[in-house]
């Protein structure tokens, strides 16, 4: 589903990604771990299309298409979803309008019929219940005045509504207490299916107790330095990231 080859990217003059190779198949869940500053978030945003990063070499193939040729919104419409580490507050735009605009923009792109108000409200209600969110949040401005946990849940809500084919979760566990973490993990697990792929970017192993990955990659210095199964996450937890620095600097 996702094939990243020799990806190099930089922000202004700093090279952050220095040759990433990654293959994520349909139905798989991959975890990307690594110390702060290793390039995890950059990789997530390069997949989503953030214009602050310049891709200097390599390619990202998504279902055979070159993702780098697509606009940000086209990627989303093709099924790419990024759950933000720091969801953005948008004053004056209600959550409900935002969600409906997003859903129907994607449907329009795909040539599907637009969603009726009634179907939208029903689907929204179901997902709010699953995520333990109050419906009053839908009339509030997008993420404005939300607590850290509420913002993360709101990301998962968007994901549940938009039903992406490739979901990238950027440090979704940061700032969550254990109850919120379980709810978020349930939301992600509910999305697991043979035709979807999920990339979980995290600093800690904790989230992976709830979202069990098929593969774990360790990113350091802008490269994937080790890949393995879920036991690699446990090994990292035990040894810490320091031993990787040596590998990366070689």
């Amino acid at each position, binding site marked *: 589903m996702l094939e990243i080859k020799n990806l190099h990217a930089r922000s202004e003059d700093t090279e952050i990604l220095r040759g990433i190779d990654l293959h994520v198949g349909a139905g798989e869940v991959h975890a990307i771990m690594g110390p702060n500053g290793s390039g995890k978030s950059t990789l997530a945003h390069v997949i989503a299309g953030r214009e602050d990063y310049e891709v200097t070499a390599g390619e990202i193939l998504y279902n055979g298409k070159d993702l780098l040729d697509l606009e*940000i*919104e086209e990627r989303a419409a093709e099924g790419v979803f990024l759950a933000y580490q720091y969801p953005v507050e948008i004053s004056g735009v209600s959550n409900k*309008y935002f969600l409906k605009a997003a859903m129907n923009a994607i449907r329009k*792109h795909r040539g599907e019929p637009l969603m009726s108000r009634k179907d939208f409200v029903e689907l929204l209600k179901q997902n709010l219940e699953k995520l333990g969110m109050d419906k009053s949040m839908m009339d509030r401005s997008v993420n404005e005045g939300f607590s850290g946990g509420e913002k993360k849940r709101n990301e998962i809500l968007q994901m549940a509504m938009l039903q992406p084919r490739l979901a990238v979760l950027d440090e979704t566990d940061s700032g969550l207490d254990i109850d919120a973490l379980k709810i978020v993990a349930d939301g992600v697990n509910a999305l697991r299916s043979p035709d979807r792929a999920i990339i979980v970017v995290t600093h800690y192993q904790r989230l992976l107790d709830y979202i069990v990955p098929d593969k774990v990659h360790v990113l350091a210095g802008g490269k994937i330095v080790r890949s393995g199964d879920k036991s690699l996450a446990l090994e990292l937890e035990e040894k810490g990231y320091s031993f990787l620095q040596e590998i990366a600097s070689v």
Partner: protein
Amino acid sequence: MIATEVDHYQEQHARSQDSQSDSAPSWLTDLRRRAIEAFARLGIPTRRIEDWRFTNVSSLANRSYELASTTFSSSDRAAELVDRARLSDEYHRLVFVNGHYAAQWSSDHKLPGGLVIDNLANAIRERSADVERQLARHANFDDAAFIALNTAFASDGAFIDVAENVAVESPIHLVFLSTADAATVCYPRNLIRLGKNSRATLIETYLGGEGEAYFTNAVTEVELAESADLDHYKLQHEQIGALHIAMTQLDQKADSRFREHYFSFGAALSRNEMSCLLDGERIETTLNGLYMPTGDQVMDCRTRIDHAKPNCNSYEMYKGILDDRAKGIFNGKIFVHQDAQKTDAKQSNQALLLSDDAVVNTKPQLEIYADDVRCTHGATIGELDETALYYLRSRGIPAGLARKMLIFAFANDIVQGVDVSEVRQHLESILLSSHGLPDV
């Protein structure tokens, strides 16, 4: 050059005085004469005057506009404009075409006792003493060229008088239309008075048709007695080539409440001055404004609040959305006089620049002579938030719609502050057509 243009207005004044000499009461003829003398002394403001530094009015004001005649040639055109300006048939409505009252489009539904809704020309004939007491009482022209000019020609406009304890339920809609058949000038003069403990909603609409560029020079004087309550809306939709210069002078007494909502869309150059004297305790004054120039439009918004007595609150929020090569000016003066202890004054001005060539000059100006007060002001000028755009787009929302959503969001809190639903819907439909959101 200025001298000749002043001459032009003076000659016009002389002609109009001749033609009205039979009908106008002598006090009015005298007032107009003093006003034209003041105008001749002041001249059309140049950019050397501090308050006009950013607003070059002379090229437009120096055109030879003719005084609009009392008859208008194309009533089809006027009818079409009336239709565009209409908000609700339930409202009390006074329509003025090229500055003159047009009875055929006006309607005053059953008026409660104690409510006078009249046109000024008629009020001058029928209640000359009342008009004499109010005209130029609050709008001082000694130092204001365009108030002087308006006063020199003051002959028609709205005359509204609400007696004590009267609550006017339907909004009063004043519609000023310019048919733009010729390059004319008109001078609407509105006198609004609310008695003690009375309440009303007043809407002024200025609207012009396609055609010759014209000049509207309007003055509104508002007087609120103790505990009176007025919501005042102004919708400025002048023709894109027009010059619109308007002053509203407000005089508030104790416990009164005033809420202004100014929306500026039209005119080549518009300047709106709102001046409020808070002359009593426990007064509440709110001034909200939204100006949205595009193309080469210039919009100058000026407010002045005089806190003269203790324990009053004023809130002010102006927002500008500027595109293309448009220019915006915001000047907000707040004077807290020595007696005005426990004043709470908040002022905020925010501008959103959608283009590299759009410019805004913003100037908060606070002068505080009392020591126990709370005054805050803030001005921000920014562009659309790139991070927010990215966030919206990353959810599949196309860049164009994402921009609209952010622009709409910026304007939305001003629009949502509008209590009159027809006005709010009118504004939403404008935002929808120009910068607005589709139903998704």
